[in-house]
């Protein structure tokens, strides 16, 4: 690394940034600095936004996501390192081996702070090591260490052993055995939290990188340190209010019973939207029966994590998405089995949503005689656990299921694609599209695939502002707004569980950015930034072969309706979805093939990607 050059870049960078990314070769351990000009930082902020820019710049067109030359970016943000609550987050961005498109996932805590304080706004891993390795980065630069003794361990065990080996001050993000075996929905984990979606762990595994360890070397300057502290105090106070009560007191699992009551709890591979056994899996009942420990990320005052005692006495982080995917979606009602399944996914390092979705699809296939797995049935807890183990080891049926439901369905055929619960290859989260039709659009058009973090349009569906069963222009507006908000929050980065405390979010977020960076960021500028980030991902996907046909939902949702106890039918006809997508394209400034016009790209500065 050319130290003089990097120091020079850091000196001229705006507050909140270092103005440089480290592009580290996993083959040699050497770093090549990549300048991040102020115009780029202001246009893409950090996190998923800057990650999209980096992918445009560093990912060769058409690259195999598991090839050595495919980059894997750990991206920080201007807020990380400040005392602002929930800001200790980082994004991991790559071309997804599951979708073949851009994927970005967030994780939290000390890795974010230490990673940024290495003096880089992003760490991009390129190439592949010739043997299992650990990548280290601190004030002394980057280097590789042998990871033979860590290979095969869970991410948590890897963190523990490597932490002991390296000593204090090091923070580690690691993959589990599933990442090593390139399960296409393997995760990258730090401190029990996962950059979960899209198979980022497989990308890291393909590079023979078991873990990346970072140690802080320098502080992050802010433009107005006193103002940041005052803003942090105010935000802390708000974070203790009613808008976050659900997360603090019961965690996200509080969704389960409520979603069941409103016919929105995906059950048995989306054949149903209510689950008779939902109370047995609910936060309300589980927390009354057993001791639950609350936990939070570094720099977070909400503390949403609820850790339940697992079968072997180890704590299991329980989230709504785990329990929906491994519980109701697979028809499994035994809470002990769902906790065990969740723990095994964590140990192996696989995304619970994609695991549950793929297994639920396989259960339906097995019951319908489409695959030869008589042991695999909805509701069978032991079958769920066996399937997870086989996926993690790629043995038996696991070799097929490790590919995700889209690839598996393409292989099995016989109509099974119609009920593979995925969009663009990414399995659906726990939000039923037929009864949440703004969310249905969000799931269909999002760049990452079926996703509830880059589109939270379910919020509008559940606000009462429109009829959630009859999608139309109001639903489109809600989906666009939701994507824009997520784009900014995921780039600044702030946890979305904080979103309810902002009254005029873009204005308030602009103020926070100003305190850290010194930029006078208006509400209007930040909304334009949101548009730019959303469309930059779309452009990347187009470069990688995306077409309008990819903005769609599985056939099941369009041809099968749900009967509600209210007497109404929840249906999402294909024509309605098509109309919503048409309107979405218009609102986003896209043509009817989903491509931004030249004028729109120029306005947003996206034309730099066309050269």
């Amino acid at each position, binding site marked *: 690394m050319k130290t003089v050059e990097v120091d020079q870049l850091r000196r001229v960078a705006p507050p909140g940034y270092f103005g440089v990314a480290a592009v580290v070769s996993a083959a040699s351990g050497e770093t090549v600095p990549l300048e991040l000009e102020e115009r780029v930082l202001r246009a893409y902020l950090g996190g998923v936004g800057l990650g999209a820019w980096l992918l445009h710049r560093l990912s060769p067109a058409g690259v195999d996501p598991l090839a050595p030359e495919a980059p894997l970016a750990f991206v920080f943000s201007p807020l990380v390192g400040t005392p602002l609550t929930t800001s200790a987050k980082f994004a991991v961005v790559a071309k997804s081996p599951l979708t073949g498109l851009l994927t970005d996932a967030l994780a939290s805590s000390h890795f974010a702070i230490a990673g940024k304080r290495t003096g880089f706004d992003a760490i991009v891993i390129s190439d592949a090591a010739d043997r299992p390795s650990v990548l280290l980065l601190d004030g002394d630069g980057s280097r590789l260490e042998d990871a033979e003794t860590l290979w095969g361990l869970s991410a948590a065990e890897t963190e523990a052993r490597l932490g002991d080996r390296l000593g204090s001050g090091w923070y580690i993000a690691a993959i589990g055995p599933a990442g090593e075996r390139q399960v296409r929905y393997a995760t990258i984990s730090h401190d029990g939290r996962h950059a979960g979606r899209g198979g980022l762990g497989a990308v890291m595994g393909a590079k023979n990188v078991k873990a990346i360890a970072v140690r802080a070397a320098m502080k992050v300057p802010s433009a107005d340190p006193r103002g940041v502290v005052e803003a942090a105090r105010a935000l802390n106070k708000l974070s203790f209010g009613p808008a976050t009560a659900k997360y603090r007191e019961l965690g*996200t699992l509080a969704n389960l019973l409520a979603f069941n009551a409103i016919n929105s709890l995906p059950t048995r591979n989306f054949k149903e939207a209510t689950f008779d056994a939902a109370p047995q899996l609910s936060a309300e009942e589980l927390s009354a029966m057993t001791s639950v420990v609350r936990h939070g990320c570094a720099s977070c005052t909400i503390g949403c994590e609820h850790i339940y005692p697992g079968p072997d006495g180890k704590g299991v982080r329980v989230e709504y998405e785990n329990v929906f995917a491994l519980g109701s979606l697979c028809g499994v009602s035994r809470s002990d089995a769902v906790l065990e399944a969740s723990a095994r996914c964590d140990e192996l390092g696989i995304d619970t949503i994609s695991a549950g979705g793929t297994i639920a699809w396989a259960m339906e296939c097995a019951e319908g005689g489409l695959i030869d797995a008589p042991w695999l049935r909805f509701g069978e807890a032991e079958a769920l656990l066996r399937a997870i183990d086989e996926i993690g080891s790629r043995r038996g049926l696991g070799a097929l299921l490790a590919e995700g439901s889209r690839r598996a369905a393409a292989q099995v055929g016989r109509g099974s694609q119609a009920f593979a619960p995925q969009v663009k290859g990414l399995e659906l989260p726990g939000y039923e599209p037929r009864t949440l039709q703004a969310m249905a659009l969000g799931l269909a058009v999002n760049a990452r695939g079926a996703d509830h973090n880059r589109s939270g349009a379910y*919020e509008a569906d559940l606000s009462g502002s429109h009829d959630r069963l009859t999608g139309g222009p109001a639903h489109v507006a809600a989906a666009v707004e939701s994507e824009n908000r997520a784009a900014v929050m995921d780039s600044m980065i702030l946890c*979305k569980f904080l979103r309810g405390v902002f009254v005029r979010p873009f204005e308030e977020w602009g103020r926070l950015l100003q305190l850290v960076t010194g930029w006078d960021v208006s509400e209007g500028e930040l909304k334009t930034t949101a548009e730019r980030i959303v469309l930059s991902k779309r452009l990347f996907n187009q470069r990688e072969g995306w077409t309008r046909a990819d903005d769609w939902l599985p056939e099941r949702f369009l041809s099968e309706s749900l009967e509600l106890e209210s007497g*109404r039918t929840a249906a999402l006809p294909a024509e309605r979805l098509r109309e919503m997508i048409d309107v979405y394209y218009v609102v986003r400034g896209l043509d009817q093939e989903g491509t931004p016009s030249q004028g729109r790209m120029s306005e947003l500065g996206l034309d730099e990607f066309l050269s």
Partner: protein
Amino acid sequence: MGTSKALLEWHGSTLLRRVGGIVGRAVDGPVICVRAPRQELPRLPQRFEVVDDEEVGRGPLGGIAVGLAALAGRSEVAYVSSTDVPMLHPAFVRRVVAEVNDDLDVCVPYVRGFRQPLAAAYRVELAARVQKLLDADRLRPSFLLEECRWSKLDERRILSDPDVARCDPGLDSVTNLNEPSDYEAARARPAPEVVVERFGVLRSPGESGTTRVRAATLGEAAQASATPLTEDIVAALNGDQISKDPEEPVVEGDVISFMSADAGG
């Protein structure tokens, strides 16, 4: 009555808000409120559309003509209701609307010895025919029936619907209020019995979360179950529509689910 029925207080809401809300729960299309010249209306949700009947003295047929015309091209069948039926139940509306098939233009309930043309279902395309009757000064609803295919839906057939039989066995859906004493008697009746479910942080540890209360509106149900209806809380009616409007009408047999407005997972 001596006062506008639309504005009459009903459990913290108004008659028009209540009746429009109940009809809206039972149909797929929009709710149209036909306003007489200079008529004052209560606060209504945005999803209600108000159209004006500019001409005076045409009776209910005038209102029906304006309402059906407003629905042209958007719905096939309309449920027509007067404003003064606070005990109307969505199951009754659904039962009546379901009766209009390809062979029928109008379905009129026959309850308590009378035809109920203002608790009836009409094919929307009748608008032009109704207008012709008005132009000919033939203002009685019965004149319309003479000119179209209609059926009489008697009490036995209405009550063959299990939902109506369970929730409105006395067919109070057609009980209208013509005199102040009618209003006072109706207002003195106990509010409907509804089930309230509370989820998440709204439920105390160890509590079942389910109670039965009497309430005619969402606001009353919230109050009766000690659930603060703040901006962070929403309610689902029978697992379907979501609301945080305290004036949202509730009816016998409803299940009201209160939950956190933030559904992030």
